[in-house]
């Protein structure tokens, strides 16, 4: 009751406000699943934009993450969706674009600030049209306990051999669990394991695009090698890692019981509040000294324009601003761990986030190999990869057998993989 009363009151005030503010002011509604970000939008982003763009008001209206896709689809179908749409990466947004519900933004000036990898999550398969302005990505790597490393006299490893040497030393010493990861939830094994270390083997975009084109197969050595690495991880994980869940792993690390955590950068803000020790990060180790390095810099969130919006001009002005360095720096500092995708250099204050983003200078970025196009059929390659990675770490399936099974599944429905 009070809820609806409050809503009515709010509605009343907005109506009044709209009436008094004359017809010049245009209010743009933003649809989003990031309800965690509401304070950031209201306190930082919206005031900054409104100060530089008089006449345009913003209204950020997030819904619950799990319901977002369904809510958004029904709002779009009913014509009641907001002017600006926060875009999920890949097929979910592509579908909306193909249905004509998201406008084509290829010609937006701000698009020049983004690389092809950054735009890949919101472009058509051939990359000719882009329909959302990329906002943020997450980067994979390893976060480590600096105090534990100092205690044991360890240096962050750069190559695979050094990586295992470090793990061996931690294990020998016995004070810490070498690495905090479990296979119970499966996605950790695939996302923080396979997709984390893999790009160094399949050479990032080169391998990913070759897989989509059908010129490489999942049974090729560059795709099996990451599994061979994962197969060696088991002994370094905690006792009973088979039943260890994702929150278990996070707690093991932040409580200081594990020394290394295979991570995604989204952990940074949570770990900063939980862990009492200093943390550092190192990028996925390369197979041999001097090899080029590749990082998974996975596109995660973007902003698009509702094709039915009556205020397309104003919305485009806002989207141009979202693509600007000013927005990138506001957003990245408000949410450490979610990195701006624009090419502009951004100053980050959080040291851990700085470490992660610095890898972009020395390594080539790619996105998770299974996300674009390859997970459209049955069996679903992403889900199969979760299962295969967990199996390989647990040692119940050999790397070769897992790769064989993934390839067979992919080739069963994906035409470019069926040739030869």
């Amino acid at each position, binding site marked *: 009751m009070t809820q609806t009363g409050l809503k009515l009151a709010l509605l009343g005030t907005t109506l009044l406000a709209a009436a008094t503010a004359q017809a010049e002011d245009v209010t743009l509604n933003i649809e989003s699943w990031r309800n965690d970000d509401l304070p950031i939008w209201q306190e930082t982003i919206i005031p900054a934009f409104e100060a530089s763009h008089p006449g345009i008001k913003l209204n950020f209206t997030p819904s619950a993450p799990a319901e977002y896709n369904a809510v958004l689809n029904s709002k779009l179908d009913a014509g009641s969706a907001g002017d600006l749409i926060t875009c999920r990466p890949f097929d979910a947004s592509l579908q909306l674009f193909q249905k004509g519900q998201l406008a084509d933004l290829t010609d937006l000036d701000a698009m020049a600030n983004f690389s092809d990898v950054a735009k890949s999550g919101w472009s058509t398969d051939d990359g000719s049209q882009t329909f959302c302005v990329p906002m943020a990505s997450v980067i994979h790597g390893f976060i480590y306990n600096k105090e534990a490393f100092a205690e044991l006299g360890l240096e962050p490893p750069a190559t695979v051999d050094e990586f295992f040497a470090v793990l061996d030393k931690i294990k020998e010493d016995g004070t810490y669990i070498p690495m905090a990861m479990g296979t119970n939830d499966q996605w950790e094994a695939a996302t923080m394991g396979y997709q984390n270390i893999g790009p160094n083997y399949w050479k990032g975009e080169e391998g990913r695009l070759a897989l989509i084109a059908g010129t490489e197969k999942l049974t090729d050595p560059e795709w099996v090698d990451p599994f061979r690495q994962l197969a060696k991880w088991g002994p370094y994980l905690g006792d009973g890692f*088979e039943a260890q869940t994702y929150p278990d792993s996070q707690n093991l690390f932040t409580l200081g019981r594990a020394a290394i955590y295979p991570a995604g950068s989204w952990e940074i803000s949570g770990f900063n509040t939980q862990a009492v020790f200093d943390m550092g990060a190192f990028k996925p180790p390369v197979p041999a000294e001097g090899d080029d390095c590749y990082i998974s810099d996975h596109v995660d969130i973007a902003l698009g324009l509702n094709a039915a919006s009556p205020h397309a001009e104003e919305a485009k002005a806002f989207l141009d601003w979202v693509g600007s360095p000013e927005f990138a720096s506001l957003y990245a500092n408000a949410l450490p761990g979610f990195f701006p995708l624009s090419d502009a250099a951004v100053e980050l204050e959080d040291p851990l986030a700085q470490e992660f983003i610095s890898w972009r200078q020395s390594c080539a970025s790619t996105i998770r190999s299974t996300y674009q196009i390859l997970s459209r059929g049955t069996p679903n390659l992403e889900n199969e990869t979760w299962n295969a990675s967990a199996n390989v770490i647990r040692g*119940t399936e050999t790397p070769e057998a897992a790769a064989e099974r993934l390839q067979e599944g992919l080739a069963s429905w994906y035409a470019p993989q069926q040739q030869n």
Partner: protein
Amino acid sequence: MRERKAFRWHIPIFLAPAVIVYTAIMIVPLFATLELALWRVVDGATEFVGFDNFRILFTDPRWSESFWNALGNNAWFFLVHMVVQNPIGVALAALLSSPKLRGAAFYRTAIFIPTILSFVIVGFVWKLILSPIWGIAPSMLDAVGLKALFGPWLGKEETALTTIALVSVWQFVGIPMMLIYAALLTIPEEVLEAAEIDGITGWSQFWKIKLPLILPSIGIISILTFVGNFNAFDLIYVTQGALAGPNFATDILGTFLYRTFFGFQLQLGDPHMGATIATAMFGIILAGVCLYLFGIQTRLRRYQF
């Protein structure tokens, strides 16, 4: 001349509310699901394919492997309940109905309480108890010197399903116990007294007199267990997630249906194949119930006092 009986309007009027509600929320959706299974999306258009979805589900190795795996796991899940839950339920009821037992009301309540807990609570509590990192199971076993017996049971393919089935047994053992307990209470004193006069007491009284009298209740419990187990989903979803790990060792028809129908992560939902699985589940349960109704229940002897 006989007067024609007036149509008895009160009968349809009294039946109407139940019939209308039941039709709207049960019968129509059921047939809509069955119908959904006969269609498929081909190149963006929905096409009528008859029973082809079923052919794919049962014969295409991409689908049938998951299906038979889920069905096999489901059968094992049911078997564990039949072998563990129901005998324990009967035994508990027999103990509770013993007039010499003190504090029967307390035991009855304590054993029944897990049944009214939410799946989510039961799932998370047991996941914590059995956690190799924080759980109390390893330290308790350690205290009695049996630490070597402990393993990450929920994470191993060989043990995960049995572990979850036993958790489910722990949760639901109260239901057979209550039903059997009620059945035991309805056995008239005279029958038992007559048995005692004939020299049948103690365990032989239970086997020879009480058990035959509660057999119909055991039959009902078996069928409830069967229907409940083949519709199960929640406990596995809570403890192991929708991918029913490790390596689909705990995948039952319910989780398989969920993944297919609603999609999971990058896998988009496929309502048509999902409905096909739902129809297959419906068929399996229908067949099981019919088998019981016509094969067993009609042969059970009933006693009237």
